[in-house]
């Protein structure tokens, strides 16, 4: 029931966000319509960091309790991390082509997100080659921890190489945006956040079912 409400809220906010992005928000003076992708791009990027943080929580929870519940939590966070960061890289690339010229620029933030994406993918590859659930949970927790520790160090080392990414306009000290743009950004943040929460819940439920199926398969095999 709760999930259904969340799904409806997500749908409504997504539609509102799309309306506001394309029709309500004013046309940006320098970049034209290409700038509108930024309303989706920025929330996706933030969800990437949120995934990293949630994976870390899952890993720490697993180390403290040894409960497979936390392993599923971490896996779900990583799954959404791959999805959202990949989508963010694609939207960034679509924006970069008309504005900067090249599809891909090895700029600090781009590189950082790509590396984070690669860490998440490596985490999945590792999981898929470990058939035993206990061992999989343990080893992927170790890798998850090492990977998430890497994020701030990566951040530091990549930022030391000069950056070409547009500076954050909405952060403190940034240039600021017009009220309409700010409102649109808030709505699309809400929409992407709700989508994230919805997908997270669904993926978590699927992970639990998968685990049960695994267990039942083993029981059946043992009885044959």
């Amino acid at each position, binding site marked *: 029931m709760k999930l259904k409400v969340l799904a409806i809220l997500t749908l409504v906010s997504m539609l509102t966000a799309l309306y506001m992005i394309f029709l309500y928000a004013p046309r940006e003076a320098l970049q034209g319509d290409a700038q509108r992708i930024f309303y989706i791009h920025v929330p996706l990027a933030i969800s990437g960091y949120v995934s990293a943080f949630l994976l870390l929580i899952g890993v720490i929870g697993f*180390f403290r309790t040894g409960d497979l519940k936390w392993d599923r939590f971490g896996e779900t966070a990583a799954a959404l991390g791959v999805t959202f960061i990949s989508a963010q890289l694609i939207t960034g690339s679509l924006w970069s082509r008309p504005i900067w010229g090249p599809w891909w620029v090895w700029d600090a933030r781009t590189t950082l997100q790509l*590396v984070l994406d*690669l*860490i998440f993918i*490596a985490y999945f*590859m*590792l999981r898929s*080659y*470990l058939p035993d659930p206990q*061992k999989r949970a*343990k*080893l992927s*927790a*170790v*890798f998850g*921890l*090492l*990977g998430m*520790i*890497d994020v701030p*160090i*990566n951040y*530091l*080392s*990549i930022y*030391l*190489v000069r950056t070409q990414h547009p500076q954050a306009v909405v952060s403190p000290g940034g240039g600021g945006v017009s009220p309409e743009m700010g409102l649109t950004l808030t709505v699309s943040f809400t929409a992407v956040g709700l989508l994230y929460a919805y997908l997270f819940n669904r993926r978590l439920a699927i992970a639990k079912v998968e685990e049960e199926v695994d267990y039942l398969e083993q029981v059946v095999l043992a009885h044959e």
Partner: protein
Amino acid sequence: MKSMSAIIFKDIVIEMRNKESITSMLMFGVLVLVVFQFAFETINVERGLLAPGTLWVAFSFAAILGLNRSLAMEIDNDCLQGLLLAPISRGELYLGKVASNFIFMMIAEAIVLPLFVVFNNLDFNLKFLEVAAIACLGTLGIASIGTILSTISANTRIKEVMLPVLQIPLTVPVIIASVEATREVLTGDTRGISSWLYVLAGFIIVYLTASYLVFEFAVEE
């Protein structure tokens, strides 16, 4: 401390008998340098600009090869079981393996580095002591994380493939910092070098500590 040196001693004795790790890393490192010479032969770019990158590609990939060997050696004949049964803490076992991996990598690099100077027509001078010092730090960074990752990847069916998949994304800071520091030394403009050295030192401290603490989860049956 005593148990750590016992592990290092054991690894050195094995290496002196079969010479697998160092020779494979050395050959691979040299081959990478050679391939890069061919790859950049036709384009007209300054060699000095590319050189630090090629050196660190050679070092980091050779290291992966050595790390794979180092763990494969323990898994053949169930040597790892024996090590785990020995009355030493998992953390000390980890530090001992890091130390022996580091020593073998440094030996291979000590031979690759002069060849790198010759292939790129650079001069043998004091700069290469500085490059060697950076190589020490970078290699320790790679060894610190590579040792625990090779233990993880050894549990999978495709361990030789899994190790680079796990290791390369995590060593991005080491590669960036080492390449930049090496470049600054080779070009003589060393104003920004301290921040790169801090990144390397920070990486080593963070990963030695974290891996020391969680190594028991990586080897537990």
